[in-house]
């Protein structure tokens, strides 16, 4: 029991994931700044911001439902930390029986969006309700190609356990090296971009349109939880792709691979305008779904 609690709250769960998330967030902001000819923040900036939000006032919306409003960010953070915990554990010791399989991770990765929608619905703001409706549409959009893309490692390794998929790749080479694997990885990069809420798929928070969308009414510590969750999402998203498609090498190589995928996400974010929600859905149901299907068929045929 103690072991599970330590694993969830300290290492590699909450504390470790939060620290990693802050570093990822700093990389995101620094690279973005350099692309945009700016200086960028110091390494500790994400930490300062979270710390400051924790000493700020919490304002509850007058015409919302306060319990749901307060619970939603905890739910959000808890589910992301759980995914982070499962992913790190699987990476550290792939042969360790059950630490969670692909199906668990797949659904846990959908929970943050659900929590977002809950929080938005509880805040009684028109901006948040538009944000929530966009979040739902986006979720419906990207889950289909993501599911198809994740079939590729399942077909190749013959298992739905994360550990087995990692072990398979360590003995037979990374999936990204195969035809089906690389296509599925590209689909995965796009889906993870949307899961992380980055441009071009940030319609649900779209600052200049709906002023932050789902989280528009949040302030103080509750907003800090959302922000922290988003930072950890920057770790979870690319790390999930590394495990699924590119899990070869020691921890240093794996870290570098993670940073490479994170950088790809940051570059996509900085070289595109925001897509309208209907365009984003069309993108996922059209080209991305077809690409994922091609990858699945290729994987069946052994490519």
């Amino acid at each position, binding site marked *: 029991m103690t072991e599970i609690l330590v694993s969830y709250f300290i290492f590699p769960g909450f504390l470790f994931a939060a620290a990693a998330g802050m570093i990822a967030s700093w990389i995101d902001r620094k690279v*973005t700044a350099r*692309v*945009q*000819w*700016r200086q960028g923040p110091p390494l500790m900036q994400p930490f300062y911001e979270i710390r400051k939000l924790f000493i700020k006032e919490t304002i509850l919306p007058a015409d919302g439902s306060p319990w749901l409003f307060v619970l939603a960010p905890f739910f959000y953070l808890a589910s992301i930390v759980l995914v982070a915990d499962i992913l790190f554990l699987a990476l550290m010791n792939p042969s360790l029986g059950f630490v969670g399989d692909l199906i668990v991770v797949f659904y846990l990765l959908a929970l943050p969006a659900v929590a977002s929608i809950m929080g938005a619905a509880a805040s009684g703001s*028109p*901006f948040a309700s*538009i944000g929530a*409706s966009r979040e739902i549409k986006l979720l419906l959009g990207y889950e289909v190609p993501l599911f198809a893309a994740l079939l590729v490692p399942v077909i190749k390794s013959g298992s739905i356990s994360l550990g087995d998929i990692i072990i398979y790749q360590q003995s037979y080479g990374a999936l990204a090296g195969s035809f089906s694997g690389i296509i599925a990885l590209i689909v995965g990069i796009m889906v993870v971009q949307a899961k992380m809420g980055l*441009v*071009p798929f*940030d*319609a649900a928070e*779209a*600052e*200049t*349109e*709906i*002023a932050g969308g789902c989280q528009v009414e949040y302030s103080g510590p509750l907003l800090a939880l959302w922000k922290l969750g988003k930072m950890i999402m920057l770790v979870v998203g690319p790390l999930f792709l590394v495990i699924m498609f590119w899990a070869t090498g020691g921890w240093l190589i794996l870290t570098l691979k993670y940073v490479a995928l994170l950088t790809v996400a940051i570059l996509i974010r*900085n*070289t*595109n*305008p*925001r*897509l*309208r*929600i*209907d*365009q984003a859905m069309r993108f996922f149901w059209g080209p991305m779904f077809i690409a994922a299907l091609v990858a699945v068929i290729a994987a069946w045929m052994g490519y």
Partner: protein
Amino acid sequence: MEKDKNMQEPKRCVIPIGPYHPLQEEPEFFKLHVDGEKVTGIDIELGYNHRGIEKLSEAKHFDQGIFLVERICGICSTSHPFAFVNAVEDLAGIEIPERAKYIRTVVGELERVHSHLLWLGLAGHFLGYNTVWMWSWKYREPVLDIFEKISGNRQHYAMMKVGGVRRDIALEDMPWIEKTLDELVKGVDMFKGAVMDDPVIWARTKGIGILTPQDIKEYGGVGPLARASGIDEDVRRDDPYAAYNMVDWKVQTWQGGDIFAKAVVRILELYESVKIIRQCLTRLKTAPGPFDLKVKEIPAGEGIGRHEAPRGEVFHYVRSDRANRPVRHKIRAPSYVNVATNEKSVIGCTISDALIVLAAVDPCYCCTERVAVVDAGSGKHLYNGNDLIRLSHEKTERLKKQL
């Protein structure tokens, strides 16, 4: 009767864009009536930024008035003085020296360059493309450097003066200015290539917020907004002033009236402006004479002045009774008519599109405001000038205590 009408209206969801919203740098209120993501109606409410410039101007003499109207807007900070001196010169029948004409034109066009670059950057920001924002503003820096060289200020150049300009452009600065313009054009070329051929940008801007030439005529739209709908109008050519009829340039128009067309027109105008500035600088090297007539007296009468500001035609009317200050000073800025066209262009768009459409007119609200603080019930004016001064004194005292 009216109450019945209201009751029959179906309940609609309103998305408030403003008075404070990340889309806007200035307070302004657009109520978007939406059905899901689709915009079905818009109410435009002005009046959050009113400063009583016209009334203030009646208390300032003609020389001070120029500094006052310069502060109507930080972006068009030479458009209003330009139109104002045109109006006063029209009133007094003054013909300014050739050198002053060229200098005025250079300043007016440099302002257009920096204003268009500023809008392009903001348009990128509104689309969530912050890299475009930062790059565009980086390319805008050399223009501000040129302003600093000419006038000592990056904004608020204070170059206009009744009867001429306040300072000369020195001969030894010209090679540097021309070199900086070369760099600017290189930057704009690259920027244009990277942005205007991007398919994702096309997806967000083409066919969105279309204004037909008929709409423009009905709403009286001006400036790049009208030219993007294929309407060939430009005060610089149609009613020439300063040196605009002495140099070679073309009015740029584009067909379509969508956001992409508005961006294209502004980019094409950048090149035209640089062309005008280059010609003016060449002529300035040899243009003789004073740059200021040192006008002392303004006769009684009335005059109008116009200038093609970056956002369209700005209009000033001045009436004088031979005193040293105007009896009436009327200002109409381009955004006043352009903002109203939103009524036509946003209906039927999705919310995402509606917001970039709102921004595509390049609105400048501080030029647009008209307001009075009244009690809606009794129609009584709530504050006079002394009350406002008293309130601000009290607030300053309060803040001092807190420090």
